[in-house]
């Protein structure tokens, strides 16, 4: 055995991983009741994996919160239950009772109202109900221009408002997690990861993801140029409309009637990454909510959307 103490060059993924773990531990050390928002997508999958590493051999000392819209893909619900069980997380599922009572859905109410009531309002309700003072989210700075300047520790007022003028400078590895009663933090441990980093990490670490990311023959209809999967019998087909069977996959996952599929034959992770690298459109293009209003992300964020 030699003690040669040679330098070891950490790869970019090792550095990103270390940063994310550091952030999660800092929140657990300083917050009273942290929670991890779980959307079942690939970014959430990476967050879960990182959390399991960060607190190993202990179980992550916080529950998972899924703000459910009741309109996710069936495969996502299956994955949610499986992951909570396998990783030993407590899973809290919150459905906005008002949205439930009013039967809010993307067909009758449109994507804006649907998202606002189920997701934005639902999230606020859940945080208040359980008294969570810090919530991990899986947002990344590379997703959109307005995210590029978002803090890792994002401070919210007691009304969950994001005040862009009242955000704290973040220097070195020092995060200021102090707050008064009622105020809370949104924390983004994977801020500095790009879409490619996420896929590479999933590949390297063998992280389970929802099968919808892989292409398969699925029933879809075309709506305003987007391929929408007919995931259950709540889908409203036009008179005479028949779902087509196509080889498709999803680059992002959300409510199935609002999520566009791409035609693809990529059935393995390397093929997915290959397709992503060769593709010519950005990830968010498949999300219907972003196109609703201009600067829509900025607005949603101020209102409390993640």
């Amino acid at each position: 055995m030699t003690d040669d103490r040679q330098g070891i060059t950490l790869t970019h993924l090792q550095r990103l991983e270390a940063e994310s773990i550091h952030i999660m531990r800092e929140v657990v050390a300083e917050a009273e009741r942290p929670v991890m928002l779980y959307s079942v997508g690939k970014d959430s999958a990476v967050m879960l994996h990182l959390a399991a590493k960060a607190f190993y051999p202990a179980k992550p000392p916080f529950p998972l919160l899924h703000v459910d819209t009741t309109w996710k893909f069936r495969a996502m619900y299956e994955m949610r239950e499986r992951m909570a069980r396998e990783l030993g997380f407590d899973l809290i599922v919150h459905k906005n009772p008002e949205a439930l009572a009013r039967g809010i859905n993307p067909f009758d109410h449109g994507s804006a109202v649907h998202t606002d009531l189920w997701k934005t309002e639902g999230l606020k309700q859940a945080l208040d109900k359980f008294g969570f003072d810090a919530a991990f989210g899986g947002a990344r700075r590379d997703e959109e221009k307005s995210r590029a300047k978002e803090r890792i520790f994002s401070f919210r007022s007691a009304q969950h408002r994001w005040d862009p003028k009242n955000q704290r400078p973040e220097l070195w590895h020092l995060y200021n997690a102090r707050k008064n009663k009622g105020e809370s933090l949104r924390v983004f441990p994977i801020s500095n990861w790009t879409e490619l980093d996420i896929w590479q990490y999933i590949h390297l670490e063998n992280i389970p993801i929802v099968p919808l990311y892989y292409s398969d023959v699925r029933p879809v209809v075309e709506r305003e140029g987007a391929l929408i999967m007919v995931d259950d019998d709540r889908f409203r087909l036009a008179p005479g409309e028949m779902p087509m069977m196509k080889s498709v996959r999803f680059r992002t996952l959300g409510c199935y009637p609002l999520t566009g599929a791409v035609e693809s034959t990529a059935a393995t992770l390397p093929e997915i990454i290959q397709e992503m690298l060769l593709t010519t459109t950005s990830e968010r293009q498949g999300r219907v909510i972003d196109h609703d209003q201009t600067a829509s992300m900025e607005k949603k964020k101020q209102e409390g959307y993640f």
Partner: protein
Amino acid sequence: MAHQSDLIATDIDAYLLEHQHKSLLRFITCGSVDDGKSTLIGRLLYDSKMIFEDQLAALEADSKRVGTQGGEIDFALLVDGLAAEREQGITIDVAYRFFSTEKRKFIVADTPGHEQYTRNMVTGASTAQAAVILIDARRGVLTQTRRHSYLVKLLGIRHVILAINKMDLVDWSQARFDEIITDYSAFAAQIGLTDFTAIPMSALRGENVAGPGPGVSWYQGPHLMSVLEALPVDDDLQDKAFRMPVQWVNRPNLDFRGFAGLVVSGQVRPGDKVRVLPSGKTSTVARIVASPEDLDVAVAGQSITLTLTDEVDVSRGDVLAAAQSPPEVADQFEATVVWMDDEPLLPGRAYLLKQGTRTVVAALSEPKHKINVNTLEKLAAKRLELNEIGVCNLTLDSAIAFDSYAESRDLGGFILIDRLSNRTVAAGMLHFALRRSQNVHWQAVDVDKAARSALKGQRGRVVWLTGLSGSGKSTIANLVEKKLHAEGRHTYLLDGDNVRHGLNRDLGFTDADRVENIRRVAEVAKLMVDAGLIVLVSFISPFRAERDMARGLMAQNDFVEVFVDTPLAVAESRDVKGLYKKARSGELKNFTGIDSPYEAPEHPEIRIDTTSETAPQAAERITAWLNGELDYTI
């Protein structure tokens, strides 16, 4: 995302393998929009193929609509959300952008904006390993170039790249390039910045950015991207002594006790001897616990969990360090402080200081000087305003393990947090410990507070009366003291007006002086409590932070806050000393309640409502409250 590697299409597995071994470099770009900074960043993103076709289509459309390049692609639009942000009144500070090449992933900290430049740049530079300083070839070294370079040096960035941009507009003149280098070298030497790489380029045309230049004979050097790809990223952090601030103690069951943290310097292996700071106890590393299997070694930059062979006391905020070369431990420092808040630094006020994983209470001296970042002149200063940089002494309420900032960004860098607003108000860099606290040891005495208190048959404590001028504090305090005295208690009354005639004669009524006024009185009261006395303090003491500071000086339960609650209108109508009248007429400045704020206590031990309770009744209530607790019992 059309990365231009053939491997993507032909052999994706080989491509992925290559990309798994990429390193990470964080850098900051310094310059203004006028220097072509946004164009440069846009270029780097574009040339590293991080732009999708839908984004490119949007860019082309925007370039035609609002671009400044006559319909040609305006790369600045890729990164400039600025106009929109300004309209929305959003603070523009630091934006982070990402791109990667075959060799490396890059995180760019982009700090736009002129007004908040110091705060933003310091924030962006704190995590950067390299800085790209832009110079417009036509304009040469400007004041802002000096400012950027000074801040880069201050934040300890070792790799500086001088991007001499817009060379196409000076016809790629070698003479002009050399002239700028000569100018810059002279200035750089002044601030101790000895090593930099200069590259002539045109960001607009992409020349020497991520591709070759125009082929001028006098510059054969590399382009920016290849310099960025070749800079060493590990620095010498791994060669330094092992340091790990403990973030969290991992205790899933009684048999496991792990210490989680980020290794900020050095390396660690099982079997290494470590010292716990500040306690100084030593132990040996047993395991570096990780999933799926333990590690043989961990290095600077990794977040780890380790266990020790002995049951030593370790908690969050401690530092684990190489036993043979531990960091110093001290509670007084000289530091450079960058003020980042709208409310200025008040010398003497208690702030929270976070360094590593430790949060302690800190007070700052008056700045020894502040620094004009444009001229580098040292100027006299009483306080620091937003975006000002000064050198101060710091006194902490408990000792911390530290390295100088020059040695370690993570153990030498700190932030200050306002205790009421919780805002991050400053960032700082520790220079060295002041030997005062080490050489002036606390003199241990055999007759202590308990002994003195026992002799007097009472427990020393402070009764702190706060309230507006004319609220009735002094009247009540006087009555309380008379009653206690009659009962045979040993007391002393510190009255605001009286103390200002002597001990605090040199202080006025500015916020800074009010803070110092209270600090001195609190220290005097503390000595008297130590002597076993019951001290009545009758001071307006308008700021919550200072009253909390006074409370923090005393042992628990030794501080009794009495809020003499008299509405402003009532106090003003009494106006015993005629001061309100003077304040209203403007004759008296900074008068509490009129043009200086009063922050009412949130949880006083006793609240006196003088509109429903007479002074004798109030004195009776306070005395009764005290008598319930005053008798000294061993």
